[in-house]
C-alpha cells in the first residue's frame, strides 16, 4: 500500500447537542475558563421541520474547539436515566460501555491537571475519578449534558517502541477479528508471531 501523506491538523470541532445551554456555558466558560470563540444563530436549517438553533463553540486549546447545538423548542429525545442527552441507556447496559465514549482534553503537566481539578472541585461538577493509567494520568467528570469529559497529561514521552507495539497489536487484531471467534488469547498468540517476525529488524532499523 502506498504511503498516504498525513495532512490533517487535529480537531476543528467536535459537536454535541445540549438542552441546558446555561449550564453548558457555566461549565465550559465560567468554571473551566474556555473562551467562547464562535457562534451561529440560525433560523432553521433547510427542511421545514428544522428548529431554530444556536451553535456555539469553546476553545479547548491548540485552536481546537468543542461545539454545542441548542435547538429552541426541542424536547429531550430520550428518557433514560443513564448516559447523556444524546444517547441514553437502560439498566441492562454495562457501565464500562456507557463510559467508553468520552472526550479527553490534553494538558501539559501535573500542575495544569491539578489546576483543572481545582476548578472542577470548586464547581457543581467535581472530579469523579483521578487515575494513573499506563503512561497518562487523568481526571474525569460529566458535564451538565451528561457527556464524560477527561483531562489528561502524559507521565513521560511516548517511546518509539510503543509505536511499533501499537502497529503489531493492530495487525494482530485484524488477523484475529478476520477469523471466527476472536479472543484476547488468540490476539496475544498472533502478536507473539509478529514480534518474532519483525521486532529484531525494527530494532536494527532504529540506529
Amino acid at each position, binding site marked *: 500500500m502506498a504511503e498516504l501523506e498525513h495532512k490533517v491538523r487535529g480537531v476543528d470541532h467536535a459537536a454535541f447537542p445540549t438542552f441546558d445551554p446555561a449550564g453548558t456555558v457555566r461549565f465550559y466558560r465560567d468554571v473551566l475558563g474556555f473562551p467562547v470563540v464562535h457562534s451561529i444563530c440560525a433560523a432553521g436549517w433547510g427542511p421545514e421541520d428544522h428548529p431554530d438553533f444556536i451553535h456555539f463553540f469553546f476553545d479547548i486549546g491548540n485552536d481546537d474547539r468543542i461545539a454545542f447545538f441548542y435547538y429552541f423548542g426541542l424536547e429531550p429525545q430520550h428518557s433514560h436515566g443513564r448516559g447523556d442527552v444524546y444517547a441514553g441507556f437502560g439498566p441492562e447496559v454495562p457501565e464500562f460501555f456507557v463510559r467508553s465514549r468520552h472526550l479527553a482534553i490534553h494538558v501539559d503537566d501535573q500542575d495544569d491537571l491539578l489546576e483543572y481539578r481545582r476548578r472542577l472541585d470548586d464547581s457543581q461538577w467535581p472530579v469523579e475519578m483521578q*487515575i*494513573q*493509567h*499506563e*503512561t497518562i494520568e487523568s481526571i474525569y467528570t460529566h458535564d451538565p449534558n451528561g457527556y464524560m469529559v477527561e483531562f489528561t497529561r502524559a507521565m*513521560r514521552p511516548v*517511546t*518509539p*517502541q*510503543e509505536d*511499533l*507495539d501499537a502497529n*503489531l497489536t493492530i495487525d494482530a487484531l485484524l488477523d484475529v477479528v478476520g477469523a471466527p471467534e476472536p479472543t484476547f*488469547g488468540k490476539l*496475544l*498468540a*498472533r*502478536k*507473539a*508471531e*509478529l*514480534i*518474532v517476525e*519483525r*521486532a*529484531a*529488524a*525494527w*530494532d536494527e532499523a532504529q540506529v
Partner: protein
Amino acid sequence: MTALYVLDVPENTSVAKVAGEDETVTVNKIGPYFEITADGPIVVDRRATGCRHAVWYSCVAGVAGGHITQHDKNALRVEPA
C-alpha cells in the same frame, strides 16, 4: 517451551526482572521486547513488580507456546500449551 513477550518500556522492566528471578526462566531481548521463556510455567508475582493496576493488566505483548491461566491482582501465570 513457553514464551512471554513484554515491551521494554520503563513501566514494564520490573515484570521481566521478577520473572527472571526464577532459575527455570530465561529472559532475553528480541528487538524492543523482553522474551521470557521457560519449559514449565512462567509465574510473576504482581506485588513484587510494584506495577500499578493499569500497567499490570496491559503488560503482556504476546504469548507463544502456551496460554495465560492466571492474570489477577496476585500473579500472572503462563503455562505450556
